[in-house]
């Protein structure tokens, strides 16, 4: 069971201009997948870093099951770029983030994302899509009940996105972590999320909050289109 997230940001700013986030409040249910949707620069990635305990310079609190985010167990984190260490093989890139991960466990995780036989490949020997899969395997290898995805499909073509979304859906169903997905594309939110929160403005605030009844991964094409249009309309209306 994933943790509940309680986010209450009184203020977060990078410069003397208007704060990026102010009086922002959000609760994420355990084991749900929340999509944060909004234009570039609205503060989605910053919020994700605060949830991940990387960014601790703000007023307010981010609690992961009642524990401050910085003190909570490490989340599985997938960045905008694969961010693999180029001097380590795919297997070692998975193993590095958790001391307890054995070679066998790391190899099994790579198999789950469809990379059997690539254990000893260096990142530059893998395609962009394969590198993303290694990053996903690394995120799931920490056995975290919290998964943070920061635009994990950016700069990938749509067929590759669908392939990786399929991998992600399978892993999410199997491990049931609480997941926060940051994306600027409503399609990605429609495919993976149980709930989508649309952000806009500065300071960023919630302009729409959609909870989807249908199960992710089992949505029909029509449902996906409907959800996508709902989110896109909310974003556009605000813009």
């Amino acid at each position, binding site marked *: 069971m994933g943790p509940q997230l309680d986010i209450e940001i009184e203020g977060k700013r990078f410069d003397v201009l208007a704060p990026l986030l102010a009086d922002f409040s959000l609760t994420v249910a355990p084991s749900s997948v929340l999509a944060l949707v909004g234009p570039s620069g609205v503060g989605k990635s910053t919020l994700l*870093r605060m949830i*991940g*305990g*990387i960014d601790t310079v703000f007023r307010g609190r981010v609690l992961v099951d009642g524990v401050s985010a910085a003190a909570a*167990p*490490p*989340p599985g*984190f997938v*960045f905008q*770029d694969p*961010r693999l*260490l*180029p*001097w*380590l093989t795919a297997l070692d890139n998975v193993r*590095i*983030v*958790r*001391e307890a991960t054995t070679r066998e466990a790391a190899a099994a995780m790579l198999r789950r994302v469809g990379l059997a036989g690539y254990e000893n490949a*260096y990142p*530059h*020997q893998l395609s962009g899509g394969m590198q993303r899969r290694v990053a996903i395997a690394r995120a799931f290898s*920490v056995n975290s009940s919290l998964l943070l995805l920061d635009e994990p499909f950016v700069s990938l073509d749509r067929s590759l996105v669908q392939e990786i979304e399929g991998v992600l859906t399978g892993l999410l169903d199997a491990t049931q972590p609480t997941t926060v997905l940051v994306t600027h594309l409503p399609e990605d939110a429609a495919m993976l999320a149980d709930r989508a929160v649309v952000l806009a403005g500065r300071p960023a605030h919630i302009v729409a909050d959609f909870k989807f009844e249908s199960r992710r991964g089992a949505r029909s094409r029509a449902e996906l289109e409907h959800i996508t249009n709902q989110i896109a309309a909310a974003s556009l209306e605000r813009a």
Partner: protein
Amino acid sequence: MLFPARLFPTPVDVAVQIWEHLTEGKLLADLAKTLTRAFIAFFVAMTLGTAIGIACGRSRVVDRLFSTWVVIGLNLPAIVVAIMLYIWLGLTEFALILAVVLNKLPLVIVTIREGVRSFSAEYDELARAYRLSFWRRFIYVGTPQLTPFILAAARTGLSLIWKIVLVFEVLGSDGGVGFRISTFFQFFDIKGVLSYSTAFIAIVFIFEYLILRPLERRILRWREER
């Protein structure tokens, strides 16, 4: 004659001279003495320079503390350091090695400091996100990023040290390649100078092609396979 044999000996003459110095002279003993001095100075300069360079790269306070001395060290003529140390400490082995270390140290510090400053902020963020321990960050994230800079410092350092050690041996020592070359110089023995120089260059080549390059290839194989 345009090129008198005494001033411009043939390669065969030089080869014969090397053989004579090897079998009857003190070539091996001199080489051993110079190499020992060079390697001790190299090891101390690299170890100290890497530690200080990392500290300077990570901390502004430490960098400010050392930056003036580093600039002085980089620009102070090597010979001045050697003369001062010979006056203060006498014509000792310790003074010679210390002089070499002090000449080499600033270059190592600057190279390593710039290496640390060029560390990727993204990898640092990755390490923080996954809460990697200090040692895991040091071994798996920091050291690989620093390795090319350590190798660059080692290569430029060795070439500098070879030269400085010989000059300091000329200035004041009881043996070694530099000392022997200065003796040959006093007798205008060009054959002797060239034979010792050639033997020394051979050692440098052996070190470069049998040790340094294979080591570099092994450590940086992930880059070579690109």
